[in-house]
Every structure is written in C-alpha cells, then in structure tokens.
C-alpha cells in the first residue's frame, strides 16, 4: 500500500503530515499501485481515477 498524497510506501516513513494535508487536498496517488491518478476537483467534492484500480470519490 502507498500513501495517496506523496506516493511513498505507506509502511515506510512518517505520513502524518500527508494525512493532515489530505484534509484539504484530494488524493493524488493510487494507494494500491502508486500510479498518479486523474483527479477532478469540483465545488462539492472530487473524483480520482487510476487506470488499473478504477474510480475513488469523496
């Protein structure tokens, strides 16, 4: 599994700052394969798509 903000392995390093930042940011990396996702932010939410692992949304 990968950190969906910085793309680094979730088990390595400290992602506390990433988790805090994610309060005001959508995810950018697919947590399953660390590909950069196609992210669309709209006024009331967001969607994030990985070609391999499909769509996530707020």
């Amino acid at each position, binding site marked *: 599994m990968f950190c969906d*903000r910085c793309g680094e392995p979730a088990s390595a390093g400290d992602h506390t700052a990433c988790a805090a930042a994610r*309060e*005001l940011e959508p995810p950018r990396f697919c947590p399953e394969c660390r590909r950069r996702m196609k*992210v*669309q*932010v709209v*006024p009331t939410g967001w969607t994030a798509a990985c070609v391999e692992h499909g769509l996530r949304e707020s």
Partner: protein
Amino acid sequence: MPQILDRARARVLDGGAGLDQAEILEILRLPDEDLPQLLQLAHDVRMKWCGPEVEVEGIVSLKTGGCPEDCHFCSQSGLFASPVRSVWLDIPSLVEAARQTAATGATEFCIVAAVRGPDRRLMDQMREGVKAIKEAVDIQVAASLGMLSQEQVDDLVEMGVHRYNHNLETCRSYFPNVVTTHSWEERWTTLTMVRESGMEVCCGGILGLGETIEQRAEFAAQLAALDPHEVPLNFLNPRPGTPLGDRPVVEGKDALRAIAAFRLAMPKTILRYAGGREITLGDLGTREGLLGGINAVIVGNYLTTLGRPATADLDLLQDLKMPVKSLSATF
C-alpha cells in the same frame, strides 16, 4: 492612534479615495498592537463604500494541469514534478458544478482553465458549457482562461461571460522571480482588453511568494491603478513539487494586515477571500478578515485543493449578520 490611521480615516473612510503606495507600506508596517484598530477601520470602509453584503462565488477547473507556463507557485504547470495530472471536465459535470454552486446562494460561477491562453478546443468547450449553464442554472458566469486575443475577448462577451479573471499574481518588480514564460506586461495587456470590452475585470494575486513588504505595497498600488471590479486575494499554499513548495505560509497577522491594507488601497472593490485562507488564517482568522475588509468569498473547493464546506462559510456569514449578495443586487 497612529497618524497613518487618522489620515486613512479622513481620506478613505470619509472621502472614498484609496491610500497611495507609501501609505499602504505604512499600514503594512503597523505593529501588532495596532492591528485591531486597523481592521476596524478597514471594516468601516468596507461597510460604508460596499455595504454589508458578501458576494459568494464557486469556481471549477474545466481543464486541469499540463500548463506550459512556469508560475512557480502552481501545481498545474506541466514543467514541474507536481503530482497533478492533466484532465478535462465534461459539460454535464460542469453544469452540475454550477448547479451545486447556485444551491449555496452563490451568484458567481467561475470557469477556470490551466492554459497560457485558450485554443480552439477550449473556446468550443466554453461556448457549449456557458450555453448549457445559462439554460439550466440561474447564476452569473465568469471565466479565467489565461491571456486572450481581441477575438477571444469578443467571443467571451458574446457568450455572455460577464466577468474575466486574470491575476497579476504579484507586483511588477517581483513578477520575473515568479514567472519566466510570460511577462507582467502581457498580463496587463489582456486586462486592458477585458476592461475595454465591457466585461468586469477581476484581478488579484497571491501573497507569500517571497515578496517583500515593500513589494506587497507596490502590488496593492498597482492593483489600485488598474481599478478592478474584484480583487481575489490568495495566500500561498505551498504545493509539493513546485519551486515554491517549501516556502513558509504567510503568518496570520501579516495576512490580516494585508487584507486591511488592500481594502484601504481600494475602498470600493470586491475584495475576495480566495485560496490558502484555511491554512493561513484558520477559522478564527477567516472571521477576522471578514471583519477587516473582505466582502466576498469563494465557497467550497478550489481548483486542485479543497476548501471548507460551503455551509461553514454561510453559517459564519449569518453569524456576522452579513447577507449573501443576491442575483437581483448584482445588476
């Protein structure tokens, strides 16, 4: 009371004229203990010359990422190792975003694209999108599509875009430190064309890019000379992978001083909270800014980052007894 505040009271509050660059600098240099008086004066100026209404706006990115320009604060530049990927919003989703924005009571919906300037495809999408919004949603449509040709200005007017955003971002003397792929003067040229077309001019920038206090005053004076209908004020939210990704955020008190200074430079403009306020000011600071010169907000999410829920801002406005500006009041 500091002498500069007495002068500002006479000139700005009573006379409705803005402070000049040297005076704005004096304001920005006021010590923390004078901040409450400064904010009160800026608030009085806003109430007298703009009234208690707050203009509410939503924004959405029609084309995200992959921009050929190099604005050093921007996660959408294709020239930096930012994780933001290029993506287009489809028209039904654009209309839905406008609908959700209108549902908050907002009167403004701004369509934004990460481009140097529009190409044919973007102008076609705009034409289709603006038409679809106007058919389905009761809201005014604004746009922010970078630098324009005269023909594109004319096309946007014909589509019914009533306001155009094009930020100068920072003062003229600091701009080359922030952007190297185009000039401040090129941006000014687009703004001039927009003004002459009859569209409302929306022009602001970002504080915290590394500019000095003197340059912040310079920027406020240059905006005042442009005399825009609206000034969106952003505070840098350092984005991973961008050249400014490691910069510190603006300190809350400096942000509030800047808000008041911009209000005293431009007593009659719509001064809007834009991005970065959540991290720079937090909830308490957001409230203080609305009581210190701000009279417009962007609600909901931004282009690539998230804001607080629209309801949080609307509750705050109600608490402050500041009515949301209605559509009938904007004509």
